[in-house]
């Protein structure tokens, strides 16, 4: 069940939904519904469609190519977009580095990078985490040493999502070692095609390889690619982390997963009846659906009325925690719904174009791997434990 909006926003939602529904290419829709992995080409095609509609960067100011929506409109759009059977817009460019460049970038950086993000000409990745700097991000060791107009970068990043596709990385590096750990960090934009950059895949528990280790061996990065001042990178990184508040909840994605869950539970049989009619299973579905309504209502409260103009605060952490738990519950229930047919593993099936025989219903092969893969959402982007620390400190005064 969805929360109703006032008439004007219901109209806006209908308009957005009407477009998105027709705009998704049929092949992308089909593979996405089945839970197949999206290819780079799928992402770029879909982002280009959104770009042509002027909707690829809903959070950007109008002057830089945003649609000029209110925060409430943007939240409504994000939810509808997430609910559409299409790949998500890759956040690294549009929602992460884009706003940082808009706020802190030089005129040259804005002129060069922003249009390329909008047109999906550069694929961005996020170079924050290192093997010894995860939750304790400020403990990062990758070094950038000044050499004339350039920096020479050495070190390594890990868990870097889609580094294998990336043209650019926004990267936190250490340029000084005095004072607090948070000082002496700089924010660099690194061309992934530079000599000395190497990328090796990390296989995840679902058998996929969306994350990577990235190594820098004397990589030359122009100082012109530094955001803002040297040593102030932590401020920019924090701005980026706090910038997100509507999409972080991923209400749209969960709405789509919930719909798929119900479709699967309607097709599975138990005692000769559809599984969705089993009181125990339907009660578990209802429980997560009510949680999702609570989350959506919380998002709407955070972005409407007197809150509309306020910058996002620690309430983002509530949305991150609850949103991730809901996604995890939904992917687990989908996998459980399929019963024993969640168990056959057909890795080839995920590859585009593969047409072999799989065991069980067509929707089955993706379910368990997706459940396994989705454990990541309570780990990345600041783990749920770290988010709780933030709430305790910043909202509860501990």
């Amino acid at each position, binding site marked *: 069940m969805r929360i109703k909006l006032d008439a004007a926003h219901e109209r806006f939602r209908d308009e957005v939904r009407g477009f998105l529904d027709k705009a998704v290419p049929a092949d992308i829709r089909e593979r996405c519904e089945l839970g197949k992995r999206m290819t780079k080409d799928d992402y770029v095609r879909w982002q280009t469609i959104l770009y042509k509609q002027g909707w690829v960067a809903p959070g950007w100011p109008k002057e830089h190519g945003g649609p000029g929506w209110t925060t409430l409109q943007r939240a409504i759009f994000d939810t509808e977009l997430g609910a559409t059977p299409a790949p998500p817009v890759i956040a690294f460019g549009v929602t992460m580095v884009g706003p940082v460049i808009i706020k802190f970038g030089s005129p040259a950086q804005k002129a060069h990078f922003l249009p390329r993000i909008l047109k999906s000409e550069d694929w961005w990745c996020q170079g924050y985490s290192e093997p*010894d700097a995860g939750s304790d991000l400020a403990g990062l060791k990758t070094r950038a040493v000044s050499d004339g107009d350039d920096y020479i970068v050495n070190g390594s990043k890990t868990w870097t999502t889609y580094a294998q596709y990336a043209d650019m990385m926004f990267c936190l590096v250490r340029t000084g070692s005095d004072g607090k750990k948070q000082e002496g960090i700089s924010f660099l934009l690194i061309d992934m095609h530079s000599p000395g950059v190497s990328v090796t895949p990390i296989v*995840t528990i679902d058998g996929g390889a969306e994350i990577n280790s990235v190594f820098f061996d004397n990589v030359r990065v122009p100082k012109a690619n530094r955001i803002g001042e040297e040593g102030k990178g932590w401020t920019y990184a924090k701005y980026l982390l706090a910038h997100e508040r509507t999409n972080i909840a991923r209400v749209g994605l969960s709405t789509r997963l919930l719909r798929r869950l119900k479709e699967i539970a309607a097709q599975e049989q138990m*005692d000769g009846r559809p599984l969705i009619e089993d009181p125990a299973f339907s009660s578990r579905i209802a429980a997560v659906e009510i949680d999702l309504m609570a989350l959506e209502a919380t998002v709407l409260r955070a972005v409407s009325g007197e809150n509309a103009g306020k910058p996002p605060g620690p309430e983002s952490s509530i949305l991150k925690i609850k949103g991730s738990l809901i996604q995890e519950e939904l992917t687990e229930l989908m996998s459980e719904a399929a*019963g024993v047919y*969640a168990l056959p593993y057909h890795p080839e099936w995920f590859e585009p174009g593969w047409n072999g*025989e*799989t065991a*069980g219903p067509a929707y089955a092969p993706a379910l368990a791997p997706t459940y*396994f893969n989705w454990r990541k959402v309570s*780990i990345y982007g600041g783990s749920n434990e770290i988010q709780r620390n933030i709430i305790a400190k910043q909202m509860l005064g501990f």
Partner: protein
Amino acid sequence: MDLSFTEEQRLLAESVARFLEKEYAFEHRRAVASADPGFSRESWAQFAELGWLGIGTPEDQGGLGGGAVEHMIVMEGCGRHLVVEPYLSTVILGGGLLRRGGGSKTALLADLASGKLLLALAHGERKSRFDLAHVETSAEKSGKGFKLTGHKAVAFHAQLADRIIVSARTSGKTTDSTGITLFLVPRDAKGVTLLPYRTVDGLRAADVRLDGVTVEASAVLGAVDAGHDLVVAAVDEALVALSAEAVGAMAALFAQTREYLKTRKQFGVPIGSFQVLQHRLVDMFMALELARSTTEAAARALGDGDADYGRASAAAAKVQAGRQGRLVGQEAVQLHGGMGMTDELPIGHYFKRLTAIDTSFGNADWHQRRFAGLTAAS
């Protein structure tokens, strides 16, 4: 009342632990699981030599005359080391059905104990979910024998088995508990087609298609129309065995996560110094202990002679193993952070096996409902 192991059981537990510790390192398991045929004949021969394959076989038939407690001990070791060999399919289910089917079939137990005979059970179907009475596969009278037609879903280890125990309907309607008959069918019999695959936890299974497979009357295991009770009893043992495997997997995850919390440093200190993480580890520990207690109680209950008590205890053990196993698996991944998401570490492999255990032969929801039915009057 003494709930500790007997001297023989203690020695068995020690020998299982010692052997697997030495011979079944995680990298060995990874190599065996990722190449065909998906298990090691060498390990299987060693299991035979150690006597594990004949533990449940009566002494007068060359076995050790043990029962559910001995199976539990071996299966806990299998869980701790993520053993991929078909112990459950061949020894617990196959052996259990041969023992119960009686007659001339018990002679096969000697081949099973020596490691020569691998068995699998093909019972569940597309629409049966976890209902053991739901059998659509048909067995029509044909001459002196039968003709089997149907589709069996996700038969564990079927592609490795020499013979597959297939259930089929000789009378009655799709969900009647009477009218189901068990047949021992050679895997390469004419009309048997397998769709083999790996399962998400690195084991092997297959869908089994039967297109008018002709079998002699002598292929019947047990009596005609009386297969359901045999399957239910064998599956009860499998539920306890799977619960024991889950306990082993949980114990491994608990130990490895504890070690990780002590060694992984962030913010200049071991992450285990954060009390909030200590409490999470405590919850994992409690889950493990409760699952272990329920499993041990169920193993004893199966040997008790009170069938209803045994049945409800097995269901309870499987519910605990399913729920607590999911919790421990998820928490182990979470507390390892990014490392927990990697294929490289054993953590995710235990997590996946625990997920598959919950799904096998009925998940927690299913057995909780069964338990309610079994205990409503008591």
